């Protein structure tokens, strides 16, 4: 079946950072250099080809961008400086926008102003909200953690507020969005492909891959360069730890152990990793730091901001500067909420959901294809061109 080339796609993708993709002349170095590129997913070259030619449908149903962790080897070796790594990154941005049914993702990716404005608006609103929450619940701004809503739960209840339900509403909102988008992702990449026809048991067989990849970033460690994986996993574990602290704090009201030790540790991890990445991006130290989309920078700034304010809050609380700690707390929330509401469902942070799912879907597809090919018998010898 012939597919229609759409020259406009390239123009669009340029807004997502695919500036150099037209330089590619398809020597195949990148796909063969990449240790992750394996049958049946040969990337990045083929995805770049789809992009160049404007085969939007092929691209939309393509899992390959997610299978790349961007170690930058391909970009280093590319003879034409076509930046395959960055092109894959830009395709991930574009795919995020495509999966998102609300269209907000597209708006935030295509317009820096929109993303920054959304973050600021949500930030200010949440700042006001949390201040009011603290103040209304009768918290004392001078005492720490007296101003933190969770600590004054009884007042809140009196007021008819329930932090848990606020959190729950937010979580349902975010997870609902992401859930729908993941379903869309599944439909674009796997569900709608009639040629695959995946049996249910294969879905079940690989289901554990999702959490496995989420927590280990195993695949990233298979890149030839190991450092990016280390940075990435520190950042990721920082978030996981923070999440744990948050859960412990919010749900079980436990601020003893987790809050005391895990919190600061997570904060340090977050600050360390994000400032490393940020300085890398600003100084363009490594291949994968050379090109930065506004969504990348915004995300790292936010990480750093959230990490730093969290740490400051903690330290200030410890040394008894109550007012400062509470001020930091509000700032912290002004960062954390936009991250959760804007960046998690719509921009950079969304990859935390899509990537493990991509691994999962990819494994399913590979399984189906291998089953089919196995019958035919694959060989590693180059094919013979028609004379």
């Amino acid at each position, binding site marked *: *079946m012939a597919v229609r*080339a759409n020259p406009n796609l*390239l123009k669009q993708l340029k807004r997502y950072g695919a500036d150099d993709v037209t330089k*590619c*002349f398809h020597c195949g170095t990148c796909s063969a250099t990449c240790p992750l590129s394996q049958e049946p997913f040969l990337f990045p070259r*083929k995805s770049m080809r789809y992009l160049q*030619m404007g085969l939007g449908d092929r691209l939309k149903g393509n899992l390959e961008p997610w299978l790349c962790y961007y170690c930058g080897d391909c970009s280093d070796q590319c003879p034409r400086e076509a930046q395959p790594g960055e092109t894959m990154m830009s395709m991930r941005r574009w795919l995020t926008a495509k999966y998102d049914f609300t269209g907000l993702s597209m708006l935030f990716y295509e317009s820096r102003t929109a993303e920054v404005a959304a973050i600021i608006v949500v930030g200010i609103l949440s700042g006001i909200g949390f201040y009011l929450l603290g103040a209304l619940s009768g918290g004392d701004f001078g005492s720490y953690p007296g101003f933190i809503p969770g600590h004054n739960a009884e007042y809140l209840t009196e007021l008819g507020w329930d932090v848990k339900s606020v959190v729950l509403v937010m979580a349902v909102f975010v997870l609902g969005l992401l859930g729908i988008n993941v379903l869309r992702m599944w439909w674009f990449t796997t569900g709608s492909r009639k040629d695959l026809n995946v049996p249910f048991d294969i879905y079940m067989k690989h289901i554990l891959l999702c959490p496995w990849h989420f927590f280990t970033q195993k695949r990233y460690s298979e890149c030839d360069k190991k450092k990016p994986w280390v940075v990435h996993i520190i950042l990721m574990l920082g978030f996981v730890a923070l999440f744990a602290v948050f859960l412990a704090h919010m749900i079980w009201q436990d601020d003893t152990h987790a809050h005391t030790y895990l919190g600061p540790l997570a904060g340090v991890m977050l600050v360390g990793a994000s400032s490393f990445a940020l300085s890398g991006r600003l100084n363009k130290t490594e291949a994968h730091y050379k090109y930065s989309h506004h969504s990348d920078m915004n995300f790292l700034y936010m990480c750093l901001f959230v990490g730093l304010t969290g740490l400051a809050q903690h330290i200030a609380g410890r040394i008894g500067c109550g007012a400062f700690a509470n001020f930091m707390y509000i700032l912290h929330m002004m960062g954390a909420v936009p991250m959760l509401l804007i960046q998690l469902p719509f921009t950079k942070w969304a990859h935390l959901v899509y990537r493990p799912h991509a691994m999962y879907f990819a494994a399913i597809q590979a399984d189906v294809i291998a089953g089919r090919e196995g019958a035919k018998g694959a060989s590693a010898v180059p094919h013979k061109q*028609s004379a």
Partner: protein
Amino acid sequence: MTTECKIGVYVCSCGTNIGKMVDCDAVTGYTKNLPGVAVCKSYKYMCSNPGQEMIVKDIQRYGLDRVVVAACSPRMHEPTFRAAISHGGLNPYYLEMANIREQCSWVHDDHQQATDKAKALTCAAVKRVPFHEPFDMQSVPMNSASLVIGGGVAGLTAALELADANQPVYLVEKDGKLGGNLARIDLTSPYLDSAKDLLAERICRVTKNPKITVMLNSEVESISGYVGNFKAQIKSNGEAVTDIEIGSIIVCTGFREFDASKVGEYGYGRFPNVVTSFDLEKMLKEGRVVMKDGKTPKYVTIINCVGSRSGKYNRYCSRVCCMTALKYANGIKSAAPDAFITNLYTDMNAFGKGCEDFYRRSAERDTIFMMFDKHAPPTVSAAGKGEHFNMLVKVNEILSGEEVEIPADMVVLMVGMEAREDSMNVARLVNISRDKDGWFIESHPKLDPVATSTDGVFIAGACASPKDIPDTVAQARATTARILAKICQGEIWVEPVYAEINEDLCSGCRVCNELCPYSAIDYDPVKKRSAIISVMCKSCGGCVAGCPSGAIKARHFTDKQIFEQIEGVLEWASSRA
């Protein structure tokens, strides 16, 4: 005639080129015992300095008076070994070569049979060589004037080069103006310089140069004579005939473009907005990159290799189209910045200086390159109703493995180069050969790319094979090197191989007069005998075989020599049986 010749026989193993298939020692062992052979040796590279010196030394040491070299084709190294034996004090015509490489070791795959054949060929040479006669080179004066056929960039360059050396030149151009195919071109690849300026400068210099006689609307009617002393008749404006005398001829007749309407799939002539590269060139030059309805095209597809690299049309690559296509991609982008340009190619031939960079820059300007298999070219069809463009190009894109439809408002066909329709006439006129595609054949594809098999006739530019401007200019000037060298020498040496008539045997029947295609045989009505004008004779031997009284002798190809050779090849064979 000597029967007690002292023959030296040298068998070359040419590295392993001969030695791998032919047992050279067996050949020497056999040849050594043939009558007249004084010395017989085998060596790795006879043509090398040590090899040649071996012959020279042996001539002196053994007092050799004939030399046989069993090696490669005489077309390759006969001049080399002739020079060598004359260095050793022998007349160069005392040499005979046995071709045991091109016509033996390279074409057979049985060691024994190849060795046997090599023996037979060597034996034939040994039998023939005693009947060789000594000749001295003939010297004839060199006419310093030259004829340049074709007024394109090659012709203009060659003419200027000669005229700047103060030598007279006749420049014959078929058209009413100079410039040839280059005059149709606006910018050159890959640096996008102005072709107009390039040409204007040359034409101005040519027309102002008193040494150059420009003959427009003219064609060469006939050419006679030989190197250094050609006579040509030029017919101008269909009637006036000028006779000129020249010493050398440079053929720069260029190319013609492939007729795109031959390729049905591309719809040239059927769809109004399918244009050839030359059509587009004109559109760009005139600043109207528009479709037939006057609108600016939004989607432009450029298809390379139209008529080139094809099993159906021309097999060869036309060498310049890839870079020209990039030039158009840039041109269209420049004239219509909103246009999307797709270039369909088979292999991107960006091999010249600056070309790879040009390729990259075109890619940076968002030209989309799609690759197709040269045996599965794209097709052009009309777009469906309601589409916002008017054609669809379908291509099997091999870098993605997808069958792709590309919207197109305009399709540009990069037509290849072909030999001109009159190339056969030109070849006949100046007596040179053409290859299967109609391109003129050079004397040696590697080391003598501008000379031809006819002495004094040179070829330059795209009449020999497709070429870009710098290569054409280089070739055009290269042709003048040997012409100027000969002019410097003042005279030229012609091979003394021609036919001669024995007056005593000639009956004056005049059969030969009619046979000679070069009118080199004169009949003397007083003596009632015919005689051959040696410098005009090209030694075909047609008269020799045709003479009823056997009065004509073909020098170096006498009946006796050939009989001996026949005996040689057969005698050896029968002695074996």
